[in-house]
């Protein structure tokens, strides 16, 4: 018997969507037939709708980011599985503004294909559509991996910033250009001390000894390329921060996301944030903004990720713009 609280493993995602739509009826509507969530509060100033989606199991991503100042629609697939192109197509038709719809897609083959098919269908219907591909995961930055870096924590920050940009009335090409620029300025690293519970077996998705850490995990419970011995938090965060700074070489302020992958506690996340802030201070990097909490998860994986986005004044201004969704508000 699986250890998830559910009626059946097939029912969990649709049941959760129903409950989500009920809890946030002021913010979203659910189309249960096509399986997408639509914002009820998107700004009238938008000329282009923002739509994202991907496998379930990463909540609050993406459903939690539908609402004013962020996404117009979200299409959740089954757990860790791409949404069907039909969901994306139907959600895009429902959300599209006068100048079309921008797809924010995390770089996974299934997601690329299904969003791509939806985009082809939209083109047949005459609905303008463009894509921003998020590929911020530093651990998959390797010549061996033909499919490219995975999309992870950066998605949250980029969806926020693009939401604010869409509210200012930018057009499709401008939003795509901004999103692509943001993706290039964003890198993430994740570690885990225990795997998520596999929905099918109720057992940990992979074994990991007490003294070991997976260094460079993704958000689907796949093992990392490196298993390393545990070390005190300051050393671990220093290693991650150094790698991120080396990859990004930020010249201006940075925005940080210290993200829980599911079962890690807020105590630990805030301790990570403290170490990160101390390290950035010491290196003279301006930690201008930060989010600490569970923003993009991998079911109940026991781990965390650190994302840095090299910002500038314009990006900070967009980041600071008001947002009101189930999971992000200011």
């Amino acid at each position, binding site marked *: 018997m699986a250890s998830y609280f559910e009626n059946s493993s097939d029912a969990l995602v649709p049941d959760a969507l129903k409950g989500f739509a009920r809890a946030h009826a002021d913010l979203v509507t659910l189309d249960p037939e096509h399986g997408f969530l639509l914002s009820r509060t998107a700004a009238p100033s938008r000329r282009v709708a923002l739509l994202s989606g991907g496998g379930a199991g990463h909540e609050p991503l993406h459903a939690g980011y539908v609402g004013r100042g962020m996404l117009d629609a979200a299409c959740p697939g089954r757990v860790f599985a791409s949404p069907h192109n039909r969901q994306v*197509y139907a959600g895009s038709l429902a959300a599209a503004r006068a100048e079309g719809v921008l797809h924010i897609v995390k770089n996974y083959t299934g997601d*690329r*294909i299904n969003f*791509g*098919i939806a985009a*082809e*269908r939209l083109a047949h219907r005459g609905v303008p559509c463009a894509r921003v591909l998020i590929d911020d995961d530093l651990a998959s930055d390797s010549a061996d991996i033909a499919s490219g870096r995975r999309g992870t924590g950066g998605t949250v920050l980029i969806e926020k910033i693009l939401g604010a940009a869409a509210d200012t009335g930018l057009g499709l090409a401008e939003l795509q250009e901004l999103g692509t620029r943001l993706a290039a300025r964003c890198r993430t690293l994740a570690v885990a001390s225990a795997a998520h519970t596999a929905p099918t077996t109720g057992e940990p998705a992979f074994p990991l000894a007490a003294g070991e850490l997976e260094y460079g995990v993704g958000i689907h419970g796949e093992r990392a390329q490196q298993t390393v011995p545990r070390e005190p938090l300051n050393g671990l965060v220093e290693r991650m921060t150094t790698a991120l700074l080396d990859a990004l070489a930020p010249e201006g302020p940075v925005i940080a996301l210290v993200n829980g992958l599911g079962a890690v506690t807020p105590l630990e996340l805030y301790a990570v944030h403290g170490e990160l802030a101390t390290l950035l201070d010491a290196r003279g990097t301006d930690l201008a903004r930060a989010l600490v909490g569970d923003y993009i998860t991998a079911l109940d994986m026991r781990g965390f990720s650190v994302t840095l986005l090299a910002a500038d004044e314009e990006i900070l201004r967009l980041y600071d713009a008001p947002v009101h969704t189930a999971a992000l508000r200011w």
Partner: protein
Amino acid sequence: MTTSTSHDATATDGWMRRFAESAHATETRLTSLDQQVGDGDFGTNLTAGADAALRRLDQLPGGDTDPAAPLEAAATAFLDEVGGTSGPLFGLLLQSLAAAVAGSGPTTVAYAEGVTDGLAAIRRVGDAAPGDKTLVDALTPAAEALRATPAGTPPDQALAAAADAAWEGVRSTARLRARMGRSSYLGERAEGIPDPGAVGVGLLFASAQGVVTDLDTHLG
């Protein structure tokens, strides 16, 4: 088997129905191919799409004379109701065919244009190139054959040429090592086995002439 010098709604409807029959007739064989180079669900995915297409064909208004309608119905069925990688890709191909037919009528030129557009869409979406051991390896020669057919050629004859070219492409995939999709993880172990998605493309074009029940003659 119908042969006519020009296609109409009856012809495109019959083509799609025969495609469904061909999928069912070869399902076991398709399953076993995908078991050898993939995850074994290609047969199920294709027949699921075929059945969904039949349901939609049956719902078209009787005496409908729009030759694009059966293609459009099949396209929507594959796009909306099939999971996996191949189903929606077949949907894209059928959608382009329907669009071309809706624009220029059910002519050889429209088929050539539709298949060319469909191939381009499939490549944009799936990022596979010829030689990657995917259905692109059957679709590329089929599109070339259609484009090479003179404009006045009856559509059935053009589609027969496309089928021949597609089967040739299918046979070529048996010699390839996969680079895209699931079978890419198998390396050498997939050599000698044709790509199931490519076989599906062969079935599609061949079904314009008649139902395919025996794959062996085509896989050679």
